[in-house]
């Protein structure tokens, strides 16, 4: 379970440093790094917080992962979760923030 940081997109704004519940991020040379990939809980707080969509979440191989990345964009009313397959295919799931879970 961990996150993948797209270094070309990262602007070193430290929002991930601010929000990670495990204090796992550091910014070195204006780029975010995770101290130890094994320590990520997978809460996706950083994924949702990153203004550059530079941080994606992925399922580790031991959890059945297949190489896809998941990032999220957020606006007033919804969170758009975008799953990128290794082949580059994108699937978006939009969750309305004002709507309760059905289950």
């Amino acid at each position, binding site marked *: 379970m961990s996150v993948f940081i797209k270094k070309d997109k990262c602007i070193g704004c430290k929002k991930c440093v601010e929000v990670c*519940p*495990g204090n796992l991020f550091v910014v070195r040379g204006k780029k975010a790094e995770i101290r130890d990939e094994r320590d990520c809980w*997978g809460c996706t707080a950083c994924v949702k917080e990153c203004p550059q969509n530079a941080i994606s*979440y992925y399922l580790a191989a031991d959890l059945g*992962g*297949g190489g896809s990345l998941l990032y999220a964009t957020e606006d007033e009313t919804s969170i758009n979760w975008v799953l990128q397959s290794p082949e580059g295919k994108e699937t978006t799931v939009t969750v309305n*923030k004002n709507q309760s879970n*059905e*289950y």
Partner: protein
Amino acid sequence: MQTAEFTADILVIGGGAAGCFAAITLAEKYSNLSAILVDKANIKRSGCLAAGVNALNAYIVKGETPINYALYAENDAAGIARGDLLLSMSEKLNSVTAKAEKLGLVIQKNPDGSYAARGKRNIKINGENIKPLLAAGVHQAKNIQVLNHVNIVDYIKDNGKIIGAWGIDIVREEIVFITAKAVICATGGAAGLYRPNHTGFSRHKIWYSPFNTGAGYAMGLRAGAEMTSFEMRFIALRCKDTIAPTGTLAQGIGATQINVFGEEYQAAYGNTTSERVFAVVSENLAGRGPCYLKTTGITKEEEESLEKAYLNMAPAQTMRWLETGLTPSKSNVEVEGSEPYIVGGHTASGYWVDINRKTTLEGLFAAGDVAGGCPQKYVTGAFAEGEIAAKSAASFALYQTSVNLPEDVKKSVVKQIENFMENKNSENSLYDENSLEEAMQSAMDEYAGGIKTYYRYNETGLREAKAHIERIEKLSENLRAHDFYELMKIFELKERLLLCQVLIAHLQARKETRWHCFAENLDYPEKKAEFDKYINSVLENGKPKIILRPLISVKDAGGERV
């Protein structure tokens, strides 16, 4: 060594559900008092609700009563719960829920305006943003100062009274001293004591937050507080690998558990929380595993709703469905038990408190997962306890004179930190905090009822576990930190090692099996009336001393079945 000092009327340690709610209560009802809320991360996403929460699992729905809720929790705990605490919590469940809605929490409603129930005690919400909402509520308050990224290590005690706490600021790299007239501990429970389901790359893909390391329990023990029911461990039944919640499938869409032959087996084992874990373990041991929640055949709409619901609390599960194409309508969802935790929001483990959530230490109150005796409190119960503790702490603080940081405390803390940062012994140390954590988890797994032994243990094994923990504790003395993050990791390890020691003493003391899996002692496989007792402990000269206390049932506390 840089230091910083703060003072307030009330200090709240931990900005999760209980801590934030305590702070919000102080802002609303005691605006003349100042308070500091301190968190090891940022209250916007700290603690076990970082990703969100799927439902509110403690609510008195139409036709139910607080007494019924308390009786349910007492039964689920096989009697090891405090009736007085359960009742005082249950009575507040609905008012705190209404308050959460005012803070912005989206709750599903029926046409008549009542909340839509999910089963007997649950209501449906969108809990993805529960932490940002609580944080926003706290930040609105003028009398609350928030200190983020400060990991509290220990209380400050003066003349037998708790007068504050000290910690380390991970970002600023300085030692922080906070004094207060009253202190509320709301640090959460303890994860990471046992070897997890995945041990390598995904070692932190666990149920409870891996950053909840039991700091509050450890601080309390070191300061002499009495703790209760550590032996009532919690093991979560989860979706395999992703460790995502199962309640959404079981209660939400009514999925039943089936074994590899497609047989429904739950009824044969009973339906308490521990029996549901035991059922899966037993089916697997009998060669009838893997076990699944039967989801195949659900409609496309149901499936899409599930995918969204999981994104709001455990995105890994939705990702797995989408990535593999094995969505719940096509493929049943395999379940497994997690490793054991100590967590007072689910079982009765934690501080021994009175009905006002006052601990056995003067000036110290506790709420949420760190507070004992009140299982099945979940998020709303943590809110309720935060509110109760805030009122009690405020009433106490009103009659206290101002407190000062004792100079000798400051000196000894600085010396302790300098020692960890410049520990000469470690130049040749073979071990670091990672390898010692792994050794601790391994010993607990093998000998104190971890996943490896299907949660079972015996007296010989517990003695082995104790010897290993003592050995690892000695090794931990030589650990050295290069920065404040590593320093935090060392303190976390030391907290966990102390908890392991006390947990083992509790497991040894309960010479019976009251709960399958949660405390399954193979030397004493039956439940015994002589253990209709709370097992409590205090630390004396660094060693756990066990105290047995008589039960206070819901009935004793004035609750009859309605």
